[in-house]
């Protein structure tokens, strides 16, 4: 079955148009900065940014590692807490009604506004972690809760008929049925965790603390080292793409056997 395998040629065919467009954009950028003689401290050419990336690789990549590590820690924490709370809410309607308004409040309050406050009470690394966690937590909670709650009624009847225990109902029915929604939430949360980490780092960085990529951007800004700002930004962007790509792959391999979202049409 062709739907169950990622075909290398198909991937290349799908990736080619955006890659070509990106290369053309970089070429245009390079050409404009050179032809118009735009100085690097106003708008550095892509070649200069790449050069900066190589020159400052130790500094920038160690900062990337810091940011990535915090993002992944926050995502893991958000997954564990979000799934556990969604499970508890699926068991108790009362708990769900009590907690849902607070979860929504947490979600709609801009994380940028919470970060400075977190820095008052927590050490900068801890504040960054909490901020990233808060950003990632809600999509996992709400999606998993939705998935757990929207199990087909006829299937619940079937499990009733065979007098399935709550535990067996969870592992054989609710959990697999909720998996697609959970994974959708996880993909959103991956991006938001990175945003949360960057936001907190920016807030902390302004206070002269931290060594993540966002702090490097602030620091380079103070020094008017514009190429380094771009280099750090490029790395952040790549990190976001990598996180999204990894979670998409995880989704694909978890669901490809049976779920419509992971299947090719007509397969």
């Amino acid at each position, binding site marked *: 079955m062709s739907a169950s395998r990622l075909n290398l040629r198909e991937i290349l065919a799908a990736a080619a148009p955006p890659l070509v467009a990106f290369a053309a954009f970089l070429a245009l950028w390079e050409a404009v900065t050179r032809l118009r003689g735009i100085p690097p401290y106003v708008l550095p050419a892509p070649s200069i940014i790449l050069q900066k990336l190589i020159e400052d690789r130790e500094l920038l990549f160690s900062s990337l590692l810091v940011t990535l590590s915090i993002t992944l820690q926050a995502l893991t924490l958000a997954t564990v807490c979000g799934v556990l709370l969604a499970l508890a809410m699926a068991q108790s309607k009362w708990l769900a009604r009590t907690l849902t308004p607070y979860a929504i409040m947490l979600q709609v309050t801009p994380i940028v506004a919470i970060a400075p406050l977190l820095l008052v009470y927590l050490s900068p690394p801890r504040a960054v972690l909490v901020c990233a966690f808060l950003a990632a937590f809600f999509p996992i909670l709400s999606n998993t809760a939705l998935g757990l709650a929207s199990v*087909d009624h006829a299937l619940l*009847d*079937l499990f009733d*008929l*065979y007098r*399935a225990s709550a535990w067996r109902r969870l592992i054989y029915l609710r959990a697999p049925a909720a*998996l697609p929604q959970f994974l959708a939430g996880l993909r959103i949360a991956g991006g938001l965790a990175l945003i949360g980490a960057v936001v907190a780092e920016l807030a902390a960085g302004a206070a002269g603390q931290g060594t993540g990529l966002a702090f490097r951007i602030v620091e380079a800004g103070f020094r008017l080292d514009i190429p380094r700002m771009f280099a750090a930004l490029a790395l952040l962007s790549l990190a976001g793409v990598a996180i999204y790509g990894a979670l998409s792959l995880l989704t694909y391999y978890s669901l490809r056997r*049976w779920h419509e979202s992971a299947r090719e049409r007509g397969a």
Partner: protein
Amino acid sequence: MTPPSGGAPLVSMRGVGKTFDGGLEVLRALDLDVYPGETVTLLGPSGCGKSTALRLLAGLARPTRGEILWADPAQRERLGFVFQDATLLPWLDVFDNVYLPLRLAGVSRALAAPRVEEALALVGLSGFRDALPRELSGGMKMRCAIARALATRPVLLLMDEPFAALDEVTRIKLNNDLLALKARLDATIVFVTHSVGESVYLSTRIVVLAAKGGEIIDQIPVDPGMTRDGEYRLGPAFSQLSRRASNALRRAMGEDGP
């Protein structure tokens, strides 16, 4: 109604009524005995409460009035239920779907395997044990659902319009398969349908329910000894029974019979 085999009913509904929380009364007071070896069809217009009666028998809903008496209370745990949709778990292959009731009962895979294979063979799905539901046709999905119901070796098989969504050809095929299954397993079946032809073809007794309240309009015995095949479908007995069932169904909907 005289029992086909004599003896005590397997299960009896005595004055069973069901009113939903919103105040809708689906069943007023249904009296129904099901004897071992019978195929009882509940025939009636949509909304007459026939599916509700089946769910009450299965214990999927509680009656608000009356009682359901089992000759042997242990047998109420040994039910098979086939829903209108196949209700297969899309992430499990055919084997695991049929294994599900046994798995939920705590039977190990190794111990269950012969019974699952047997059930798959009974419905003709032995070659599809590794297929996923999405790879099956509508008829095959329904066979899988029937195999799942048979895996627990039920005393009573409850079927809620199982073939209503299938095309005519598949439906006739599955009707024949069900008759063959019944002959092999000597099963007792309660079958809900709104198709007169299906009820006459499959049943040993047709129970026609009124459109509102589920009052029994008519009970039509069908000779269990009759051979059910294409000839039977075209013969005089079939058309006579169909006419009687159709007339009862018309009365059930509040129209006057001829």
